[in-house]
């Protein structure tokens, strides 16, 4: 008889478990599938009852997401030149003509700029601080680390009031720089805690050997520790990026135009009589897909990231 453990679950219990978990997975993914499919429905199909599972795919949502349109009376419609492009045609089918591009592109770009900017800053500052906390005797180390973590407990609205006032007097309201600094301040606690964990796992002997070989502390940090911590830094960066990408409260309170990111913008996409659901779904799909891909890439470090390094597995 081969190695057999009495604690190994029976085949039947595995089957039952697999079945139940699959059932949950299907139910939990349904809203996400619905977001993606609604993006490819026409306005009519999106609000039909019973809800349509099989439908004629349409790019109406995506075209509406990127354009602003005006309604044209039927008299004028006859006088228009024939539609020049496929997206002109889709808009004409709705009885409208394209008036110009929408703001979605800009808002998405803002999300990219602010997301990457704040992630870069959090990682630079976080790595330095994490290295110091990991390797040196910093006075009041535990208190400082707890202080850094406790900043995360504050309700965003509680600090939003004075930050709003502060930014107004410094001219940082509704600027990329202001949002980058703010998101860095929010993310830094996560960055320091996670990176400290990753750096703690790198044996000190490597650096000590480098120091003996004539490296300065700084060189040892740059040439020995940083390459060793690369995976940890990359996954911490993705966590910071996802947070900045998803953040809504500060964005809606502190930005209105130039620096507005996508999350406050997407819910404001409206069509005739309320929200233009295919366009909202199209915007949500474009906005959520990168995060879904990153989540799958991150799955090994997920647990660590969401618990600030408290649970490591």
């Amino acid at each position, binding site marked *: 008889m081969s190695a057999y453990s009495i604690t190994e679950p029976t085949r039947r219990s595995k089957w039952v478990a697999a079945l139940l978990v699959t059932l949950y997975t299907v139910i939990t993914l349904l809203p996400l599938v619905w977001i993606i499919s609604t993006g490819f429905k026409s306005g009519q199909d999106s609000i039909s009852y019973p809800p349509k599972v099989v439908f004629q795919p349409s790019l109406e949502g995506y075209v509406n997401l990127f354009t602003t349109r005006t309604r044209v009376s039927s008299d004028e419609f006859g006088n228009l030149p024939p539609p020049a492009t496929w997206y002109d045609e889709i808009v004409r089918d709705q009885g409208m003509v394209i008036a110009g591009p929408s703001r979605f592109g800009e808002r998405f770009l803002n999300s990219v700029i602010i997301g990457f900017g704040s992630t870069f800053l959090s990682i630079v500052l976080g790595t330095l601080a994490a290295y110091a906390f990991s390797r040196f005797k910093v006075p009041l180390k535990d208190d400082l680390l707890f202080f*850094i973590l406790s900043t995360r407990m504050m309700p965003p609205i509680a600090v939003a009031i004075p930050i709003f006032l502060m930014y107004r007097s410094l001219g940082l309201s509704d600027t990329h720089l202001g949002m980058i600094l703010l998101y860095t301040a929010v993310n830094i606690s996560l960055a320091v805690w996670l990176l400290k964990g990753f750096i703690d796992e790198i044996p000190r002997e490597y650096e000590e050997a480098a120091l003996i070989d004539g490296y300065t502390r700084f060189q040892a940090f740059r040439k020995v520790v940083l390459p060793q911590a690369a995976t940890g830094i990359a996954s911490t960066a993705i966590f910071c990026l996802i947070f900045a990408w998803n953040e809504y409260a500060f964005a809606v309170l502190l930005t209105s135009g130039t620096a507005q990111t996508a999350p406050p913008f997407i819910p404001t996409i409206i069509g005739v009589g309320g929200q233009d659901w295919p366009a909202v779904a199209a915007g949500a799909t474009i906005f959520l897909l990168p995060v879904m891909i990153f989540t799958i890439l991150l799955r090994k470090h997920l647990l660590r990231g969401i618990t600030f390094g408290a649970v490591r597995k």
Partner: protein
Amino acid sequence: MPNPIEAAASATPRAVARRIRGLSDRTIAWLFVAPTIFLLLAINIFPLIWTVRLSFTNFAANKPNAEVKWVGLRNYIRILTDDGIWANMQTTAHFLLWTLFFQVVLGFTLAWLINRKFKGNDLLTTLIVLPMMLSPAVVGNFWTFLYQPQIGLVNYVVEVVTGTPASSFSMLGPGGLAKWSIVIVDTWMWTPFVMLICLAGLRSIPDYIYEAAEVDRASKWRQFWTLTVPMVLPFLMLAVLFRGIENFKMFDMVVLLTGGGPGNETLLASIDLKREAFEKWRTGYSSAYAIILFVTVFGLASIYVKALNKVKER
């Protein structure tokens, strides 16, 4: 233990020693930590102190030139004696307790099932986790579409499964369902969080403990309650701590789903705070409100962490 750096330094010529050491470790430590501390002081602590200061005044941010008066504790007294605010606190507590309850039950059950290690459990775990990583605002907004009265997907599913006519109820409208609707969305989003942490807890239990229990002829039921549950408890409590703090602060998902309505049925404290601060512009009053909320979450979290440490020590 002799420090190898010191040893190396003393054995080499002075010029080389200086190069090895460069800046002293203490200087480097401060240089590395200072930017982080400075940033947190500027964007977290300074604003917090400012909030405390504002909370004793009648300042209104939309009238920056009006005369600012000290009002002492008046803002605090008004908040603590306001029935409306106590109602919001109850709404917050309802949301907090029920989301925690469902997430713990579902999250633990899922983790327990996944821990049977059936084929494909890794793939399913990754898929289940997806909702929690997504933007609560964008997803919350889309759920209003799923919750649409009469024609929404949720109403349709309920009609198909239970036979209740889809037009007879409204998930976000009047009728008392709204406060359950926000619990459902939050549970959908965050059950995977509790699940992942419980899974780590279950996987941390070594097999030999169960083997010993088998030898002792403990029933599966008994093993579950006397081994599995106590050993996962610290993990579960940690998950509850994280979710509790987050849901006390909950703003984005609920504000986009219901905006606090219908009426004030889902008016969580943080949504009410946003109205006071950025719609009614009662800056001084809302600063006091913010401080009360912060002290509450900080106090509750501290008590909870003490309890958690006790469980860990056992």
